């Protein structure tokens, strides 16, 4: 009939359907401009959606390790502070020993000082931080060191008293201790007394700490020991040195026997100090590792954040320019619809 034919509904339909599409896109662009992220992340990324889920997981993992490292670091700081106090206590006791060795009257004084030092030692070893006993190994819920001065006498005090009575036939408070020879005392100190501080006896009478130290994961791959425990040789030696002068009847001993004890104690404290330094160094290196791990994870977290942004984000400028283009298009489509509605022969036919 006619060479080019087009149905009226096709003319208006074309604009209508394209208008629908434009509006759908408009809603999408609006959301993207508002959030700065893809409107439907999964749909836009397809198989790469798994990547962003993994990245987010890893990101939160690192974040949680970084958070827990804060706790680990403050625990380490508290441990270091306590160790420092141990060392200072031992150092000053050493000074007191030197002063006391050659004085006749100093025995009673040093006995008191030793008792105070032992109490201080017990206090420090029982330090808790945020509900965790720092020197108890993994038995974090118990105070590791038994109080020596408690009454009735605790297991550790009883064990010392028993050993003393067994060795010399009298109790420490007996004035007859004056007759103990330096050699006999030496033998006692190296033998029965030293045995009270060997690991097995220590664990049964002195310490409730576990030999196993707490371990913490300070990065995804590093699981390190982050505590030292009260069963360490340094602690045992320190306790034995304090006890020697605190509870072996020091005040009544003969001068030479007393000196033998002081000499032995001086040696033992010196050893203990070395041990404590080693422990400080051990924790120090862990602190260093925690710090390094934090720095490393901080960088990784930054990288992941930007990677997630690159996957899920949209360029805000692109999105907003797309939005304004779409707005213009929609407006044009509206105008066109109105114009096309008017475009009909009816308007030009004469009405009678």
């Amino acid at each position: 009939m006619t060479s080019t034919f087009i149905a009226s509904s096709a003319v208006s339909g074309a604009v209508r359907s394209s208008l629908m599409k434009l509006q759908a896109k408009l809603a999408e662009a609006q959301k993207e401009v508002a959030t700065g992220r893809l409107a439907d992340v999964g749909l836009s990324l397809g198989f790469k959606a798994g990547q962003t889920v993994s990245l987010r997981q890893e990101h939160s993992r690192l974040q949680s390790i970084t958070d827990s490292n804060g706790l680990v670091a403050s625990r380490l700081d508290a441990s270091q502070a306590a160790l420092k106090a141990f060392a200072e206590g031992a150092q000053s006791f050493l000074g007191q020993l030197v002063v006391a060795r050659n004085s006749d009257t100093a025995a009673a004084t040093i006995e008191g000082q030793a008792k105070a030092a032992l109490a201080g030692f017990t206090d420090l070893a029982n330090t808790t931080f945020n509900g965790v006993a720092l020197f108890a190994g993994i038995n974090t819920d118990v105070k590791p060191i038994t109080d020596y001065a408690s009454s009735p006498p605790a297991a550790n005090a009883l064990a010392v008293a028993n050993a003393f009575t067994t060795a010399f036939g009298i109790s420490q408070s007996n004035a007859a201790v004056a007759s103990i020879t330096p050699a006999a005392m030496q033998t006692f100190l190296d033998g029965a007394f030293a045995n009270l501080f060997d690991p097995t006896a220590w664990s049964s009478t002195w310490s409730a700490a576990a030999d196993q130290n707490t371990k913490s994961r300070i990065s995804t791959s590093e699981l390190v020991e982050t505590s030292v425990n009260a069963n360490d040789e340094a602690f045992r030696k320190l306790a034995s040195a304090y006890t020697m002068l605190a509870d072996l009847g020091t005040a009544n001993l003969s001068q030479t026997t007393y000196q033998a004890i002081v000499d032995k104690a001086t040696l033992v404290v010196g050893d203990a100090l070395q041990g404590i330094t080693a422990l400080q160094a051990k924790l120090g290196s862990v602190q260093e590792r925690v710090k390094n791990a934090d720095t490393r994870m901080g960088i990784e977290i930054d990288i992941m954040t930007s990677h997630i942004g690159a996957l899920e984000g949209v360029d805000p400028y692109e999105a907003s320019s797309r939005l304004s283009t779409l707005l213009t298009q929609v407006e044009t489509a509206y105008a066109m619809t109105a114009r096309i509605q008017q475009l009909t022969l009816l308007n030009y036919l004469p009405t009678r």
Partner: protein
Amino acid sequence: MTLSIGLDAALSALSTTADQTSIVSRNVARAGEPGASRKIANLVTLQGGGVKVASVTRAANAALYDKLLGATSDSAAQKAIVDALDRLDATINDPELDASPAALVGKLADALHTYATSPQDAAAARSAVAAAADLAQALNAATGTVQQLRTEADGEMAASVGNINTLLARFETVNTEIVKGTRRGADVTDLLDERDQILTGISAEVGVRTVSRGDNDMAVYTDSGVTLFDVKARAVTFDRTYSFSATTTGNVVYADGVPITGNSGRMLAGSGRLTGLAAIRDTYAPTYQSQLDEIARGLITTFAESDQSATPTLPDVPGLFTYSGAPAMPASGTLVVGLAGSIKVNANVDPSQGGNATRLRDGGISNPGNPAYVYNSTGAAGFSQRLEQLIDALGTQQSFDASAGLVASSTLSGFASSSVSWLQESRKSASADSDYKAALLERASDALTKVTGVNLDEEMTLLLELERSYQASTRLVTTIDNMLAALLQAAG
């Protein structure tokens, strides 16, 4: 008597113009109706010079119409798939919300880590167990979503089948009318339009092929060749399943006794909503379900407890995560259908069910009465070894069943992430495909409307022409009347 012949011709012109006007009116009236075609009056000259409307035909284009049918089927199939996949996306949602099973596995690992850093902290224990419970619930809920989706797809298939049968019955009525009318020589164009519309409706449900025969008769087959209509409508049958679990298999749709959906069958329909729904019910949803099941199995395996005796003799048992088959462990690397629906946190460790959360640290979740499975034999409050072991286990590769359609060996969280990838990639490609098919449909429908639709301007001009010809004819009648009157006067 040539004057009277002229009068007859003028009169026939008048009635023909009236007929043509009525066709213009019909066209104008249906201009906005989709699927209505333009009607054309075909005139013949009568002996003696008169004219009459011999027949009415419609503007049609068989090739474009076939294309429309195909595009309708394809688009409907893709749309059903996209809609369903969008529903499955609810189990993942925006990655930012961390709601997917993959993200919840990560959260559980984080909670375990926090607990391992402060093993004496009962609150950290409870929060780790809560994270585990969240994960188990998410898997249960996702299973619910998947099975609900299958139930609904099955219901929609039933509705679709019902629709096809109704349409076929109407098709039969209309087709019979058309054949009869054509034989009688009546105007069947409106019936043809109606039949086309019914057919378009059927093609949205299932892909069709048509064969036209004499007398405007038509036979309809599915795109795979199964007869839907040939003189008589054939029955399309389907047994609906009212409730789906992961182990349920849906029924097959039969047309004329031949299966047109399902996995086995040589004449399965290739397009239409029915096919899309069947693909969701039988392929997409079950695949996603097996991925969820494998995640659940991976969790049970990862958190299993082993005999801690010096010489272990007892088998591994499910620990933090357990399921209906406990205390037996699910077989390694083998899919257990529906596991994601039954996985739960063991009541012995869940404080909200009267359990003790610290068992997560100490072990013995499976059976608190059996010391063989206790890891923390001394009961130390700072014992973190078991927790660290669990964290390590989460990061260890394990094997997964190939029927889940993902990697064969991966870490648990890697597997869960690749499940996200699978779903989103399916969505992306289905959505792109659907957009493409919808555009094709729009094109086909546009092309057909352009050719067969009504142009109001054309009808108006036609009307003007008819008006003029009517005026001319009436003028002729009056003129001849005057002439006859003059003749009679002269004779009188």
